[in-house]
């Protein structure tokens, strides 16, 4: 699933959009150690933790994109760091539960035809 398709489907606001990565997995969590322990590699991460440390966690796990929910404020510093480390950032006024619902449909949902 292309990142741009996810952005469209979830109506995300682009904060730092550098490359249209292929996304296969998703994870949601606000505890850094939990994300480090359980997120799949190369996934998209849904969180409210908008600080520089989130970029460090994303790097370790090869997370390609972060969605900040609840319309949290994103500092200029965080944007700069994301650009430097090539991590895509998005935000949404929706909460994590709602975003995950939409993501799940896209990444895991099975549509049966006929």
């Amino acid at each position, binding site marked *: 699933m292309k990142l741009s398709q996810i952005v469209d489907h979830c109506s995300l606001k682009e904060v730092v959009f550098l490359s249209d990565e292929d996304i296969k997995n998703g994870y949601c969590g*606000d*505890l*850094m*150690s*939990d994300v*480090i*322990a359980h997120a799949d*590699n190369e996934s998209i991460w849904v*969180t409210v*933790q908008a*600080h*520089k*440390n*989130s*970029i*460090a*966690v994303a*790097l*370790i*796990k*090869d997370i390609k994109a972060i969605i900040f929910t609840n319309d949290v404020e994103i500092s200029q510093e965080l944007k700069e760091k994301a650009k430097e*480390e090539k991590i895509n950032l998005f935000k949404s006024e929706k909460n994590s539960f709602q975003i995950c619902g939409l993501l799940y449909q896209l990444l895991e949902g099975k549509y049966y035809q006929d």
Partner: protein
Amino acid sequence: MTILHSRQKLTLANELIYELKVKDAMTREVIYFSEDATFREIQMAMKNNRISGVPILDEKRNVIGMVSIDNVITALDHDYVNEKVREYMTRDVITIPQNFSLVSAIKKFEKYKFGRLPVTENSHSKRIVGILTMGDILNLLLLSIQTIAEKVEEKEDRNSQISEQLIEKTQEKPLRFEVKKADFDNAGRVASIIRTYLQRLNIDQKTTRRVAIVCYEAEMNISIHSLGGYISVTLEQNNIIITAVDYGPGIPDIDEAMKPGFTTASEQIRALGFGAGMGLPNIKKCADQLELESSMETGTILKAVIRIGG
């Protein structure tokens, strides 16, 4: 030396025929004739070049016919070998576009039993750009498999061990990073530097990630719970060793600290997403060997050993 099992080999070849294109395998120098050539001329060319069929092209290099060795033999039999091929050649030529995958070419060879297929510019064109035989396909497959095997071998050599030279170099100048108390903004810095460093050394991704996780959690622990400290990373031939040292105040009960979910972090720190009580359990999960020593007087020393490729 890497030994590929026959089943794997087959899968690899199967994958390759889907990936590789006709234009990768085809011969670009084509021996061809116009429809004014005689069977005799073509027979001579076949003999000299050891080929069993030639395409017949018009002045724009479009494929208009094919003459095979069978056609030549028939011409000899019926005594028109000195006549022009125009009246006799096969006009119903099966061609293949250069951008098609090899699998479609193989299917055509199987279906029509031809020895060679003229390759065209694209599916709307009859203009020739090359010629393809099963031999060309097999050659390219063998070459690709050999290249892949060499790469795998090279990678294994590089990944499973760190050279003596490099070990000496890091022993002279160890990788050591200060970690300050409550410096959450910079936390993750050590993990990030080490990660890049190991990537440059061509250490495999899984090992690199395990080292990065240990560094990250150790770094967070020092900055959340201690007065400050440092992390050092040393290399051995088959191991990467991470040592995290802090200047106190020490862990009162190590067994308790190792339990998932146990935390002494403040509300403020937890609001940032740290102090989930999973740091030490995460380290334990990633390390092949873990030593943890703590004294209420001098502080805590954590030593994690990670086997490369383990």
